[in-house]
Every structure is written in structure tokens, then in C-alpha cells.
């Protein structure tokens, strides 16, 4: 399968810490690739490095085009959507304003967004800061889905959500993966098992495993050794 995103020898230093130590992996076009690992191994930093939110060196090719030296806004405009950890919606803006801000051209996909998250249409005039955590997560995902992106970088979308909302977010991710490629950081292995085709595992700033997600999650020993948690089925 063709590689849409190709990461080579990517390094990130945050202060004195060498967080990413030359990671290399590919994200195939279409579907969901999960970026997994224990807490603090560099998953969020990887997404932030891909989109240029932290200083980095190495190579990041998007569909054959080098983007590692491009500024964040230019990377996004090349078709990279980003759903950050902790949502980062603009609390002082309304839901509608948050979405308007995310519009990159005249072809914003409001129909898709409101079909996936009808609540956002009803709460258009509500300040985003007054939404529940789940609603804020929907808004954060909606902002990324509003544009026709080539790849979505999604960082722990189910973190802190109630089980019913986790299912809703997983449904949205499944739908998103039908439209575009998704690189997903996710601790909930049940969600990973449901939506991901491939998996990349990080450990202390290095890639330690690349392979099909089902294969990884089927092995209790690998899950325990690489991710430090129980079997995927226990976490669904």
C-alpha cells in the first residue's frame, strides 16, 4: 500500500530531554494507523513534531513532499488536520465561531460535521468553554473534519470520556477513516482494536514495533511488554 506520510530520523529535543531519538515509520494511505506506547514515550510529541508545533529535525514527507521545514500553518494547508490532546477548543468563542475559524476554503463540510455531531448544530451559539468534555471533543474532531484533509493527526480523542461517548467518538473516527487517512494516538486499546489497521509502537523516543494492529493486540505478551497494560479485550 502506498505511503502517504513517511517519517525518517525524526529528532525532537524539549529542554534537556531528547524526546524523539530518530524515529522512522510510514503511514499508509487510507484507514487508521495507531501510534501506541506507554505514557511519556513521545506519542504526543510525535504528532506535534509532524505538524511543526515543536522544533524538530529529520525528514517528514507528505505524499512525496518534504514538510519538515514548513511552518505549522503551511503544513495544515497542505492537508494535515490536527485534533490535539485535551481538545484545545477556543473557550471564549461560540461553537459556530470555532468551526468558522477552522474553515480553510469555501468548501467546508458542515453537512458531514453536523451529520456526525448533530449536537454541535444545536449548540452553535453556545460558548465552547461551557460545553461538556465530550462535546468539546466532538468540536475538536469536527474542526479537523470540516476540511478535506489528506491526513488527520488525532491525539487521545477518548481521554476522560464516558463509555457512551467513547463509542460515539470511535464511530466518528471510523467514518473519518473512510474519508481520509488517520494517525491516531490512543490509550484505549478497545478503540484501537476497533478502528486501527496498522500500529506503530514507541518506547522512550524510539520505534520498537511496526505491524498490523490486530496482530499486536492479539498477543497478550506483546501488549503487556510494549504497552504495559493488560489485554486489549480487557480495556474495550
Amino acid at each position, binding site marked *: 500500500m502506498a505511503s502517504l506520510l513517511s517519517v525518517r530520523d525524526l529528532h525532537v529535543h524539549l529542554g534537556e530531554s531528547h524526546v524523539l531519538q530518530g524515529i522512522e515509520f510510514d503511514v499508509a494511505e487510507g484507514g487508521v494507523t495507531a501510534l501506541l506506547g506507554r505514557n511519556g514515550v513521545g506519542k504526543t510529541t510525535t504528532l506535534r513534531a509532524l*505538524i511543526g*508545533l515543536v522544533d524538530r529535525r529529520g525528514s517528514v514527507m507528505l505524499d512525496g513532499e518534504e514538510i519538515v521545514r514548513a*511552518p*505549522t*500553518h*503551511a503544513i*495544515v*494547508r497542505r492537508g494535515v488536520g*490536527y485534533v*490535539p490532546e485535551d481538545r*484545545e477548543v*477556543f*473557550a*471564549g*468563542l461560540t461553537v459556530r*465561531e470555532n468551526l*468558522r*475559524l*477552522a474553515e*480553510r476554503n469555501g468548501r467546508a463540510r458542515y453537512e458531514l460535521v453536523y451529520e456526525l455531531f448533530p449536537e454541535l448544530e444545536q449548540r452553535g451559539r453556545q460558548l465552547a468553554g461551557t460545553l461538556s468534555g465530550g462535546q468539546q471533543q466532538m468540536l475538536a474532531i469536527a*474542526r479537523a473534519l470540516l*476540511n478535506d484533509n489528506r491526513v488527520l493527526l488525532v491525539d487521545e480523542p477518548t481521554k476522560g470520556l464516558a463509555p457512551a461517548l467513547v463509542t460515539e467518538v470511535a464511530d466518528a473516527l471510523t467514518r473519518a477513516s473512510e474519508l481520509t487517512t488517520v494517525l491516531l494516538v490512543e490509550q484505549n486499546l478497545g478503540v484501537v482494536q476497533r478502528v486501527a489497521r496498522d500500529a506503530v509502537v514507541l518506547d522512550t523516543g524510539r520505534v520498537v514495533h511496526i505491524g498490523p494492529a490486530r496482530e499486536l493486540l492479539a498477543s497478550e505478551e506483546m501488549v503487556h511488554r510494549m504497552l504495559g497494560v493488560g489485554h486489549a479485550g480487557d480495556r474495550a
Partner: protein
Amino acid sequence: MSTFLLLTITGVGLGALYFLIASGLSLIYGLMGVLNFAHGAFLTVGAFGMWFVESKLGGIGVLPRFLIASLAGLVVGGVFAVLVELVLIRPLYRRHIEQVLVTVGLGLAATALVVAIWGNDARPVAYPSWLGRTTTIAGAHVPNDRWLLIAAAAVVLVGLTTFLKRTRYGLIIRAGVENRAMVTALGIDVRKAFTLVFALGGVVAALAGILGNVYFTTADPNRGTSLLIFAFIVVVIGGLGSIRGTAVASVVVGLVQQYANYYASSGLGDLSVVLLLGLVLLARPRGLSGALA
């Protein structure tokens, strides 16, 4: 009663002058995190731009001369602010210590340059005679230039609020005040908004300089530096990044200063403003609007 009314209206007028300086300062800090100690230089450059053009325009009436010179002052202030942002501030984003050093240095250098060219003496400014007269309200003889200050500040407040609420750039600036990195992560080049905010801040500070020329009847090279101190106090009391908070704080500071000067002792106005700052920070560390001070 007429004295109290006079103090109140002139206090609001003084607050209007503070608002014109402080609003740009507040927006620049709120969006960009830049403590712009050169903001007083925008005021000085605008004021002297106005004075210079006016002094060169002979043979036409005072009103058109005043209007043309004021327009020139606004343009000079805006262009100067844009150049400062592009040349000095842009290379120093995220380097806050260097920003402070550069803006403090620029503020001092701009004043020194004006003094070197035109001398340290304040220069008299011509303006329409109506502005030098008073209007009597309930026995209080209110100088007309205060009305102009209040009207200008009201127009700027409504204009800035409408701009922030109704335009895409306003949306970008409001979002940028909350989370600049996330704005760029939505594909927006926030640097354009930075330049625009500096331009707006420069134009409004230049307007303060021009109306300050009328208020004090002269263009003074040191006025930007002295008014900047009050502008910073206003911004901190109002809450950094909040235009409405800045407007409320400006009026409060102007009134406190006028009342204290008259009812306590002449000269206590400045001290009372500093005390007010301390009280507000003790009671509301994030300023009146709740934005982080």
C-alpha cells in the same frame, strides 16, 4: 455639584486618553505576549507627525490643516508600528527578555531622536478654536477637547469591538489571545494578525498622541513615555488582552486621578492610581475582566 460634574467629565476625558493608548497595548500583549515598552513611541511619532505636517501647511484654514495633519499623524503612527513589528519584534517571538530590551531601547531611542531633531521643548499645536472653548452643563464649564477625547475613545471602542466580533481577522485575534499555537494548527498564518494588531495599536496610539496635542496644547517628545506608565497600569487593572476591561479601567483610573487631585491634594492623583492598582491586584489578580494580569 458643578465641580463634581466637571471633575467627572474631565476624569472620563482623561480616561478616554488612557484608553486610546492602552487598548493597543492590551491587544498586542493579549495576542502576542509582547510587553511593548515602545508603545509610547507610537504616540510620540504620531503626535510629532501631526505637528510636523501641520507646521508645513500654510495658507489653508485651521480646520482642514488640523484634519490633514491628523490623518498624516495616524498614517505615520501606523506605518511606524508595522515597521517595528516586522523588523524588530517578529524575529524575537517567544524571546520575551529580548523583546523587553528591544522595546525599552526603541522607546528611549525614538524619544531621543525626536529631541535631537526638534529639541526638548514642547511645540505649540494649532487646532480649531471650538476645542479651546468650554461647554456649560449644569453649571460646569467643560473644556470641549474632553468631548472630542470621549467621542474618539467611544468610536475606537465600538470600532475595535465590532472588528473583533464581526470580522474573520477579529475572530483570529480573539482565538489567538486564547491559544496562539492552536490557531496556527488550524492553518492560519497568525503572523499576519500580529502585524495587523501592531498596525491598529500604532494608529490608535497615534490618535492618542494627536488628541494629546490638543489636550495639552503642545506636542511634547516626552509625553509618550509618561503616559505609557498610566497605560500599563490601566491594562493590568483591566486585564491583559481585554478591550472592555481596558475601557472600564481607563475610566476608573481617570476618575480616581481627578477626584484625588481635587478632593485630597494636588499631586495625590498619581499615587492614588498606584494604590488602586495594588488594591485591584490583591482583590482580583487577573484584573477586572478576569484576564491574566
